[in-house]
Structure formats: C-alpha cells, structure tokens
C-alpha cells in the first residue's frame, strides 16, 4: 500500500460519511489548495470560493477516491475550479466593459514596459498560469502537471514554453541561450 496508513484510515472514514474525518482532510490539504487557487485566480476572495467548492466537490465524490493519494486528486479539482473561476470572471469583465458601468476597466499593458512578475502573471491565460503554478510552485514534473490539468503532455510543454516566453517579454528578462 502506497498511502500513509493513517491517511488511509481517514479516507475510509470519509467514505463512510464521517464529517470529522473530512475535517482532517481539510486541515491537511486546505492551505495547499487555497494557495494554489490564489496563485491561479489572482484574487483572495475568489480563491476562497474555489477552495470551498473544491472541498465540497471532494466530499460529494469521496467514494470515487480509490487507492489514490488525496493530494493530487484535490489538486486536480482545485486547478480545474480555478481555471473555471478565471473564465467566469473574464466573461463578467467582458460584459462589464460592454456596459461600461461596473468599473471593469481593463488594465492596459504595454509589452515594452517592464512589469514585475506579479503583474506579468496576471496577464497570462488561466490555463497557462495554472501550468506555471503547478510546475514552478508545486514542483510537479511536466507529466504530473499534465495529469493535474487533464491535458496531453505535449500541450503542457507548449503552454509552459509560451507562458515563460510571455513572462520574459513582460518583465524584460533575457532568455538564456
């Protein structure tokens, strides 16, 4: 058995509907999920919503978790939720700009201006940013990142390459030859 025996017992109790056991899962993985969501969605309140939705989905689907570490499983849910949240927000911003009354003013960015990394990360597409977060923050391999994103390995390699190039452009960093 690969999983920590204590964690196996906790997951078994969760499957039996034990909410206290699930609270142990939240205690163990909550901060990791929240931080990952925060890095992808770039907004504290939205990240908390993503974190909440991740664990509620996990609770509803806990019986589908078989002989698998809950960490990567939660990671997959959190990443998908984060990307979906970014897309929902983006659609709302488009509407807000169209009606011009909700203060949804898009920040104009010049690629010539040297942005700091935080603002440069803001500019990435959500799925590119998710790849960057999983690979560079969680230190997942390209294959593991692909698994978390549910995308082919080549697609993730391409996203990482494009995202890195864009970040370098935005921050004015030279690429190492």
């Amino acid at each position: 058995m690969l999983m920590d025996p204590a964690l196996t017992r906790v997951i078994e109790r969760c499957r039996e509907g034990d909410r206290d056991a699930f609270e142990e899962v939240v205690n163990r993985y909550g901060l990791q999920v929240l931080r990952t969501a925060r890095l992808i969605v770039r907004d504290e309140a939205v990240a908390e919503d993503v974190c909440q939705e991740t664990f509620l989905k996990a609770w509803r689907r806990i019986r589908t978790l078989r002989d698998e570490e809950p960490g990567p499983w939660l990671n997959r849910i959190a990443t998908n939720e984060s990307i979906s949240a970014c897309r929902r927000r983006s659609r709302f911003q488009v509407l807000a700009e169209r009606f011009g009354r909700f203060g949804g003013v898009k920040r104009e960015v010049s690629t010539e201006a040297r942005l700091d990394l935080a603002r440069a990360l803001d500019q990435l597409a959500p799925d590119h940013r998710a790849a960057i977060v999983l690979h560079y923050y969680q230190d997942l391999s390209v294959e593991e990142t692909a698994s978390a994103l549910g995308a082919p390995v080549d697609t993730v390699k391409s996203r990482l390459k494009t995202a890195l190039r864009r970040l370098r452009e935005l921050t004015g960093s030279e690429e190492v030859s």
Partner: protein
Amino acid sequence: MSDDFERRLREHLHHEASQVPQLPRELRGRIRNGVQPRPRFGMRAPQLAFAAAAGVLAGALFFGVRNQQVIINALPAGIRQLIQPTPTPQPFVCTDRSGGNPSVSTQVTDIRWARHDGYDRVVVDFSSGIPSYDLTRQPTANFVQDPSGQPVTLDGSAGVKLILRNTDGSPSLARDSKPGFPALREVTQLGVFEGVLTYGLGLAAPTCERVLELSGPPRLVIDFATSGPAPSASPTPTLAPSATALGQFQCVDASGGMDAGPVQLKAIRTAHQPGYDRIVFEFSPGTGAVPPYTVTRQSSTHFVKDPSGQPVTLKGSYGLRLVMRNTTAYGAYQGSSDLTPGLPALLEAAQLGDFEGVNSWGLGLARNSCMRVLELSNPTRLVIDIQTP
C-alpha cells in the same frame, strides 16, 4: 534547463503563496457547513416546514390526540428533524482540535468531570460564550507551566493541553484534581496569563477524543474514549524495548515539538552507536524549539512524495515517516535529499516533500525496530535513535 529567470519565478510564486499564511477560520466554517446534511425540506422553505408541523399538530390536537410522542411520530421525517433535539453522533477522533469564537471574552466558571460507559468526560463551563480554544494531543504527561516555564508531570502516560483564549478563570476553580478515571487521570491548571487560560489533562494512554460545543450554559465538552480503536496501531516489534540512560526505546508512533514560527532545516547527520543508529535533524541557529513533528511507523518502505503523490520505495523492509510542520529545508539545507548511510538499521533517508511549510522524510529500515525520539537544544535538533540488535 532551469535558468535564473525560472529560479526567480519559482521564488516569486513561493513568496506570493506565503502571503496566505493559513486557512482562514471562516473558510473552514463554510466548508464544514457545506458538508452538513440538509433537512429533508431543505433550508429554502423552513417556514413551510414549520407551517406544516403546526398544521399537523393542530390537527392532532383537534382530534384529541394527547400523547406528545404520538404527535411527533405522526410528523414527516423532515419536520421531525426540525423540531426534535439533535443527537450527538460525533465519532471520537485522534487529532488536535480547535474551535470556539475568537471574538468571545469570557470566564471559566467551573470545570468538572464524570465517568461514563465508553468515555470519560470533562466539561468546562463559561460565563458567556465559548472562546477560541486549541486542544493539543501529546505523547507524554509532561507539561510546562505558563508563564513560569516550570515543568510539571501529571498522572498518566499521555496528555492533552487545552488552551482557552480571552479567558479568565474564576478564583474558586480547583488548581489540580486527580479524577483517576480509566482515561482521565489528572486535571491541572497550567496558567492564567495575558488572557490565556491553560489546562493540562493527564491521560492513562493516548486516547481519541470527541469535542462538543454546547449552549445553555455555554460549555465545552471533551470526551476521552475508554474503549474503541487504539490511536496508533503498530506492528509487533521484532526487538523488545530496552531502557537506556537517554530514555526508553518504544515501538509506537511519536509526535511532539512546538510551533514557535517557521523553522529552517540546516543539516542532517547519521551515525551508528552501540545499540542504535542515530539520525539528527539540526535546525538553523536561533531556532527556539523543535517544530511540531510526527514520526509514523510503517511495515514497508513505500512512501508517497508530497505534493506530487508519486510513489517512492526506499531501501529496507520497514519504514519511518517523519513530518515536520512549519519547516522547510529550502535555503538552508545544502545536503543530499537522498542519504544512504547503510547503517545496521538505517539504510536510507529521503526527503519526501518540502511544500507549504511541511518538510517530510522517509526512512528506510533494515528491520522492524523500536525507536527513541529526543528533542535537544544548543543547537536545536530532533534526534531519532533506531534500535539495533
């Protein structure tokens, strides 16, 4: 290949992540509420449920039914859930707990205990509301008084520390009592200082607990199981424990340490001594205390990396998993993340993860061995001695 930009990006992401220091309590509450079962009629129409209940009650009374239980039994299940008191089905769990309301400032008016079938109960009564509290389990009955720092040892072989914030104690409270129950052996007040009231509870053995927050009057109830599953099942040891001057080797999981802020792991050393192999985890200068840790025994050398979840198998046939919280090796530890000392008992030590302030290591052992865990100072270090034949 990783270049300077990628290194900066990695550091930046970790820095951004560290701006979220913890999971907010409100968010925990939202998640907890989200997994609670909904009444059959749902929260969307409570008025409808109560109106239906009132209608059925009125009807029952109209037809002369005087037995209240008959009336309640006549109600649909969803309405019964709304009007009947909720039982307390919470299971006993073997983890640290926290809760209460941080905005409550209160006084403990009484602390009492009683023995029941299957558990020993401690009740803390408050004058107004349940304050923010932490319940921390520990593998010994040794405590430290607050603020004097004087050590105090209670009856029993394990303990639980109860910290109540924004709380004062009534002068009439007993300072020390020895219930001598099957699980609960001693209750002592460790200190009242700066609005923090602390109790130490001495337990006969590591025991799972159940915590209830009740009202009317506001009270915190802690039940210690006196029967049921053992908190940490361990395989039968192949080597009998033996006493030495440094303490006894034990064949059980261990935990300890103290959360005194972020800690950096600086060095790891291994050595063979007569009767045991030693691995030392040394922390950076200025570290005040060994961070919170758990050492978990397992009957294989299969581990899982954090956070990738990838399996890794170390040398040997048994394993120990060391998890240190609020600890990182990043920036201070220059050694290998996979040591193969090839000692009689300790064959391999590999870092399993260094993520979100949790630094974990897997130890591959030649055989199922008992261990001794020491927390030492000057410099601050965590020592694990693994018994050899």
